[in-house]
């Protein structure tokens, strides 16, 4: 039996006056990669932002490790051990790679240094460009920096928003490999449109459509269900 690490119950989120998430339900098991699927504008990013406290839900409950975090400010949620890799990667362009890593460290202890070493072995490019401003990195390098930064803290859950977006297939493969390694150490919620990536990494899936959860199950199920894929993911 696996434990529930994160649970969204009847989440309603507004952006200005727009009712974006409508009673979203969603559950993440410890140690798994849960993939959040759905077409453009379905509400995947908004779901992650609601979890992260960047766009707090108006009603419903977000429970993380048996604690209600729905209304907490983002920084407190981060301190509970949730790392965020946003869709736009959130790299500070004028800060170097090294400074981007350091500014995200909640502590600078031995354990953090160990994780840093591990993550730099995973992404040797980052070491190579340590002194380069974040804004001068390629798209793939920015993505790796953002993922690395989320990992360097003692996080138990990573929220990763469309890491394959805009990347060349070779780079996507590298990102997949890195998340595969990360997966052994932490739980992941992965928003992904790229079904290949989703299917390689995912243990279970949720499909969002129009701000509502419309399907969920084991990834295996989705691989075989052509109709679901066609209907919500636009894959023939």
């Amino acid at each position: 039996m696996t434990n529930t690490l994160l649970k969204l119950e009847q989440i309603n989120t507004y952006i200005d006056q727009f009712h974006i998430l409508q009673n979203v339900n969603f559950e993440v098991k410890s140690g798994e990669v849960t993939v959040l699927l759905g077409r453009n504008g379905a509400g995947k990013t908004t779901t992650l932002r609601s979890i992260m406290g960047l766009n707090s839900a108006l009603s419903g409950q977000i429970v993380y490790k048996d604690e209600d975090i729905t209304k907490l400010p983002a920084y407190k949620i981060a301190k509970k051990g949730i790392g965020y890799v946003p869709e736009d990667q959130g790299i500070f362009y004028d800060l170097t790679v090294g400074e981007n890593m350091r500014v995200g460290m909640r502590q600078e202890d031995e354990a953090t240094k160990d994780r840093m070493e591990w993550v730099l072995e995973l992404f040797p490019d980052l070491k190579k460009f340590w002194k380069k401003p974040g804004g001068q990195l390629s798209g793939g390098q920015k993505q790796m920096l953002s993922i690395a930064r989320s990992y360097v803290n003692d996080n138990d859950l990573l929220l990763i928003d469309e890491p394959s977006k805009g990347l060349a297939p070779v780079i996507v493969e590298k990102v997949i490999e890195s998340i595969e390694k990360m997966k052994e150490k932490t739980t992941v919620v992965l928003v992904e449109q790229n079904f290949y990536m989703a299917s390689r990494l995912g243990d279970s899936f949720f499909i969002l459509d129009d701000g509502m959860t419309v399907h969920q199950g084991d990834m295996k199920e989705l691989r075989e269900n052509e109709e679901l894929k066609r209907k919500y993911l636009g894959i023939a």
Partner: protein
Amino acid sequence: MDLFINLAINGIATGMLIFLIACGLTLIFGLMDVLNFAHGGIFAWGAFVGVWGYSVTQNFLISIVLAVIAGLLIGLITEYLIIRPVYGNHIQQILITLGFMLVLSEFIKVVFGPNILAAQKPPFLQDYWLVGDVTIIKYRAFTIVVGFIIFVAIMAVLKYTKIGLIVRAGVMDKEMIQALGVNIRLVFIGVFMVGSALAALGGALFAPSSGVAYAEMGMEFGIFAFIVVIIGGMGSVPGSLIAALLVGLSNVFMAYYVPSLAMAVTMILMFLVLIFRPEGLFKVSGVSNK
């Protein structure tokens, strides 16, 4: 040549004083997205507290420290009472901080009396050095050195300390820095207090050099500082230094050669920048409007 060097030193010294007000303002705007028109009022308070402190203690260093403490306190009060309710709303910020600027000015008259105060330089900074045939006024040299030290110190903090990195990152992307576990509110308060303290330091240094402290000086210098922030690029400390020196120098030279244009030249500088480089001389990249 003698004259030219003298004007240049005078211009740089004036620029350094403007820089002390502007660097706080630029960080407050860049990080907090707050238009703070009360900032000049804290400059004036610094001047009065400094003058008062010197007359009471006859110790220049203590008078400066008192002014800086006053700046920290007024900064804390301003952030808490005036700025906090109007985050995210520029129109309200302009109205309420302009109003508070007047309150700060009037309160100076209540506390220190309605008259202009005469300000003295400490004896060790009163005369000048003769270098060849150039006279260097000690107090101006002192102002330049202090301004430069402050600049280097701020840059070092921003470059090498964790809190400095957080401030720079916050200027670029407030959301992401919070998602990384930083309580940006605390950083706001800290930056606001330090920025206010620097403005107060500027005031305390300015009064002895001009010989007077008057309540309206806050408004005058506050406007200068705003222009400098626009020219230098909002959120950029080096930008505000360069812009402050430009404004200081052009003012001093114009005041000498074409006095009627002294004020206009600052405006012309600002318009030129707005036309050709609307983001200012130094652009902080990744400034988002999130």
